[in-house]
C-alpha cells in the first residue's frame, strides 16, 4: 500500500525534510545535520528508553502538524517527541530554546567540579563541548559544590560520581547489555547517585561499555587513567577476531604504544558496535590488532586525527621584508599611538584634519 510509505514532512530551523513516521524530532534534525541537530546529553539511540532527562535537546514546536497547526505550549524534548506531518520546529532559530538551553547548561554545571585539567574525559567530553557552546565564563553559584567519594567498580572502571550528570545511560547500558544489572541510581533528587550500594565490582563481559556511553568523566577506564591526554593520542581504527564481540575498535596510540582501546563512535559520539572487556582492557599491544588506518573525526574536534593536515599556515611577511636580516627592534604598534588601537573611532580623535572637517566648507 503506497499510503504506508507516506513520509512526514517536517521543517526544522526553516529546513524542510521528509522522514519516516515514528522518527523523533532529534533524529530528523540529525538527518539535516550541523547546528540544526540539538545537543543530547542523555539520549542514546542505541539504548532503549534513554533520553528525556537532561533537557538540553529542548526545542520549540511552533506548529504541531498540518492537521493541527497549534503550537505546543511548552518546549519539548526533541529526543522523545516524534514528528508529525507538517510539523514546524525551531531549534537554534528560537530565542526561547537558546535561553532554556543556556539555563540547562548552567544547571548541569553548578555542581560539576570543573576539574577538566585533571579529568581523563577532557577533550572528548560532551559537557565540555556543551559549555563551550552555551555556557558563561563565570558561575552564579556561590555555594559549596556537591561531592562524592570516588570509588572503583572493579579492576577496570572507576566511578567519579562528583562529575556525573545523571543521564542514566550507564544504567540502560547495564540493563540492555548484561544479564544482571549490578549498579543503578540510588537515593533521589540532588543527592541521587550512580552506585552499587554495597560497593561491589561490576564484572560482566560487556560492562566496559558504560565508559563509552558516559557523556562526562564519571566512568573512566582505570587502565588509561592519567596515562595521557586524548589529544596527544592518535586514534586508529583496528579489528581482531574476537569470540565475544565484533572486535571492531578504536586504538588510541602514540608511536607504537597502545594507550587505550575504545569502541568506534559515529558522528554523534555514539558507539557503533559494543565491545567486550577483553578487547577493551586486555589487548594493549599493537600486535594484538589489525590496524586499518587513522580514524576520521570531525576536524572541529581537538582530538581529530590530522587536526592540522591540509591547514595552510598564514604567510609570515616579516622575513620576506627583512630579506634575511634580523630586525633590530620589534615593538607592539598598539602601544605606540592610540591611532593604532583597534577600538578607537578615528573620527573622534583630536588631531590632524580628516575628511569630515571639510564638509560645508565649500
Amino acid at each position, binding site marked *: 500500500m503506497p499510503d504506508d510509505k507516506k513520509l512526514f514532512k517536517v521543517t526544522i530551523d526553516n529546513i524542510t525534510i521528509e522522514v519516516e513516521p515514528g522518527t523523533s524530532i532529534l533524529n530528523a534534525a540529525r538527518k539535516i545535520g550541523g547546528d540544526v541537530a540539538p545537543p543530547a546529553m542523555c539520549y542514546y539511540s542505541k539504548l532503549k528508553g534513554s533520553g528525556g532527562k537532561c533537557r538540553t535537546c529542548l526545542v520549540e514546536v511552533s506548529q504541531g502538524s498540518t492537521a493541527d497547526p497549534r503550537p505546543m505550549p511548552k518546549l519539548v524534548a526533541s529526543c522523545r517527541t516524534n514528528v508529525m506531518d507538517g510539523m514546524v520546529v525551531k531549534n537554534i532559530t528560537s530565542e526561547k530554546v537558546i535561553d532554556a538551553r543556556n539555563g540547562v547548561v548552567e544547571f548541569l554545571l553548578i555542581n560539576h567540579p570543573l576539574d577538566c585539567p585533571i579529568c581523563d574525559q577532557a577533550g572528548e567530553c560532551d559537557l565540555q563541548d556543551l559549555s563551550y557552546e552555551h555556557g558563561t565564563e563565570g558561575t552564579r553559584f556561590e555555594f559549596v559544590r556537591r561531592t562524592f567519594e570516588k570509588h572503583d567498580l572493579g579492576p577496570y572502571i572507576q566511578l567519579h560520581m562528583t562529575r556525573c550528570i545523571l543521564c542514566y545511560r550507564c544504567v540502560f547500558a547495564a540493563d540492555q547489555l548484561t544479564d*544482571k544489572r*549490578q549498579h*543503578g*541510581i*540510588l*537515593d533521589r533528587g540532588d543527592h541521587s547517585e550512580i552506585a552499587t550500594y*554495597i560497593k561491589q565490582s561490576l564484572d560482566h563481559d560487556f560492562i566496559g561499555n558504560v565508559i563509552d556511553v558516559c557523556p562526562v568523566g564519571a566512568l573512566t577506564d582505570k587502565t588509561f587513567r592519567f596515562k595521557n591526554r586524548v589529544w596527544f593520542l592518535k586514534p586508529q581504527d583496528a579489528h581482531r577476531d574476537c569470540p565475544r564481540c565484533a572486535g571492531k575498535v578504536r586504538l588510541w596510540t602514540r608511536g607504537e604504544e597502545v594507550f587505550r582501546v575504545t569502541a568506534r563512535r559515529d558522528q554523534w559520539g555514539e558507539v557503533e558496535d559494543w565491545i567486550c572487556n577483553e578487547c577493551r582492557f586486555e589487548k594493549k599491544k599493537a600486535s594484538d590488532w589489525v590496524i586499518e588506518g587513522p580514524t576520521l573525526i570531525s576536524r572541529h574536534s581537538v582530538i581529530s586525527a590530522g587536526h592540522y593536515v591540509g591547514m595552510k599556515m598564514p604567510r609570515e611577511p616579516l622575513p620576506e621584508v627583512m630579506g634575511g636580516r634580523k630586525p633590530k627592534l620589534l615593538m607592539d604598534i598598539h602601544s605606540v599611538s592610540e591611532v593604532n588601537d583597534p577600538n578607537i573611532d578615528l573620527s573622534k580623535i583630536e588631531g590632524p584634519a580628516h575628511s569630515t572637517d571639510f564638509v560645508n566648507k565649500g
Partner: protein
Amino acid sequence: MIKFSDDRLAKVQELVSHYPEGKQKSALLPVLHIAQEQFGGWLSTETMDYVASLLHIEPIEVYEVATFYSMYNLKPVGKYMFEVCQTGPCMLNGSDQIIDYIKQTLGIGVGETTPDGMFSLKTVECLGACGYAPMMQLGKTFRENLTKEKVDAIIEECRRTAATNN
C-alpha cells in the same frame, strides 16, 4: 539467614497475588514495609537481598527503591522515631519551636538517636496533617496539634510502653 515469620510470608504471598502474573515486583513497596516492621525498624543489606530473592528480582532493584522513598530507614533507628513535619503550614503554626523543644528535651539533634536507643528525631516534609499542625508521625499514627506539654506526654508514654513491654 533471615526469614519472615510464617504469617508474614503468607501476607507477602497475598500481596503478590494482587498483581498480574510476572509482575510480582509491584509488591516491592508493601513488602519492604513488612520487612522493616519485622527486622528492627530498618532495612539492612541482608534484609533487602532477602526481599529481592522473595520477589525474584535483582538486589540492585531493591536498593534503588529503598533509597528513593523516605519511609525506609537504611540505618538502625531508635525504638520510637519522632518524625516532625517542618513544611510551610506546620511552620506557620510553630513547628520550629516544637523541633527545638524535642531537641532540648531529648538532648539529640535531628537525625540522631538517644544513647539508650529509645528515641530518634527526624524532620520530615508535609505529611498531610496541615490543619492539625504542628504534628509528628510516631509509628503508624499521627500526633497532632502538638504543644510542649503534649510532647512531654508522648515521651512519657513511650517510656511507659517500653517499660511494660520489657
